[in-house]
């Protein structure tokens, strides 16, 4: 068979590359960042082999730069993802994610009796433990551990 060797994902001239996203979290990251509503050219690769860990996903977005408050929202689900800022084909900045103190809108409270699940209210959570990623609902004060965190669809 005639095999052509090609880069799986093409290089970017200007924009942002989000790398080292766990494969099972990739589309969640896409939705949390609202990439489905973006006009920019976006290349998404998933189930790529990674030197660091198993299978990974990668997202390349042309001509788009994120505010850190925007990008840190994905720290909840992909804390080890790395953000590369590309200008003129060069990585000008490599950024690790940091968890914000507060997360608004993206998490859904697990408590069915929480006011946010029964009234039209945006959710708000305080990140109480950045190591183990424990969050606390601002309204019903329920503590939620990382494995139990639910995301708004």
């Amino acid at each position, binding site marked *: 068979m005639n095999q052509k060797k090609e880069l799986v994902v093409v290089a970017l001239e200007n924009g942002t590359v989000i790398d080292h996203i766990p494969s099972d979290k990739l589309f969640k990251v896409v939705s949390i960042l609202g990439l489905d509503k973006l006009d920019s050219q976006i290349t998404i690769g998933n189930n790529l082999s990674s030197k660091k860990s198993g299978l990974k996903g990668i997202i390349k977005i042309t001509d788009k730069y994120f505010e850190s408050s925007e990008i840190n929202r994905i720290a909840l689900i992909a804390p080890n993802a790395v953000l590369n800022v590309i200008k003129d084909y060069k990585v000008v900045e490599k950024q690790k994610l940091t968890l914000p103190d507060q997360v608004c809108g993206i998490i859904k409270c697990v408590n069915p*009796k*929480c*006011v946010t699940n029964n009234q039209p209210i945006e959710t708000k959570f305080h990140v109480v433990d950045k190591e183990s990623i424990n969050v606390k609902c601002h309204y019903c004060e329920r503590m939620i551990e990382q494995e139990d965190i639910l995301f708004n669809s």
Partner: protein
Amino acid sequence: MNVKSLVSITDYSKEKILKIVEAAERFEVNPNQDLLKNKVVATLFFEPSTRTRLSFETAINRLGGRVIGFSDASNTSTSKGETLKDTIIMVSNYADLIVMRHPLDGAARYASEVSNVPIINAGDGANQHPTQTMLDLYSIKKTQGTLENLNIYMVGDLKYGRTVHSLLMAMSHFNPKFTFIAPDELKMPEEYKRFCYEKGIEYREMSELNDISEADILYMTRVQRERFLDLVEYEKVKNVYTLKKNMLEGTKENLRVLHPLPRVGEIAEDVDESPKAYYFQQAKNGVYARQAIICDALGLI
């Protein structure tokens, strides 16, 4: 958020707690004043709670205020689908202060964010009931002369009982020693034990109510049948955590028995005659504590 609101007991600093307790002492001496003259207070009870509502309304009436509101949401526009936000904004146009009870957890915090006037939480679902905690603290102060260095025994449902959790948080300012007495199914949650550990507060856990000779305060709670999957287990546990009069022999002179009420058998009727039984006076103290909380929220004390 409205800074004068009281949603959760953790909204109060140690200084604020002491200020409220001292004000409650003054209201007990002189309960009828006209501090709320020309003020309108709304009591919005989205779920019924006659005991709490009457306590608040007594507090308001004794201070010369007027009360508007409802004791059950079924006759209000809430049943037509009005959002909580709209109801609160509308009422905050009429009243100087809103006292609210709501079946949903977090409803009072949310209301405090949309209201133009202070909100006092009179219970939001299973979450918080801070005025209960303040009347508990006032009762402790009144019977012990201090809040500092007390030996506090909590008995019964320590897992779901919001009153014991709030009391634990509030007492943490005053170097207490805790003893938690509960069946395995209803033990104090890890989160609160960790809180004690981090604050350097001594606590121990016991599964039987037998040795209470060191206690200053015995805080009883209701063990609810619906918490048990196995009703045989409930029947067994129910009797183990019942306080009987003979169990008060050999206890400290200053021991007082508290209970948020209503009780259903956790305290035998014969305990009522003991001078150490304090739960009915405790309920009465609620009026003074609420007078203090209302006046504080309105900046009147």
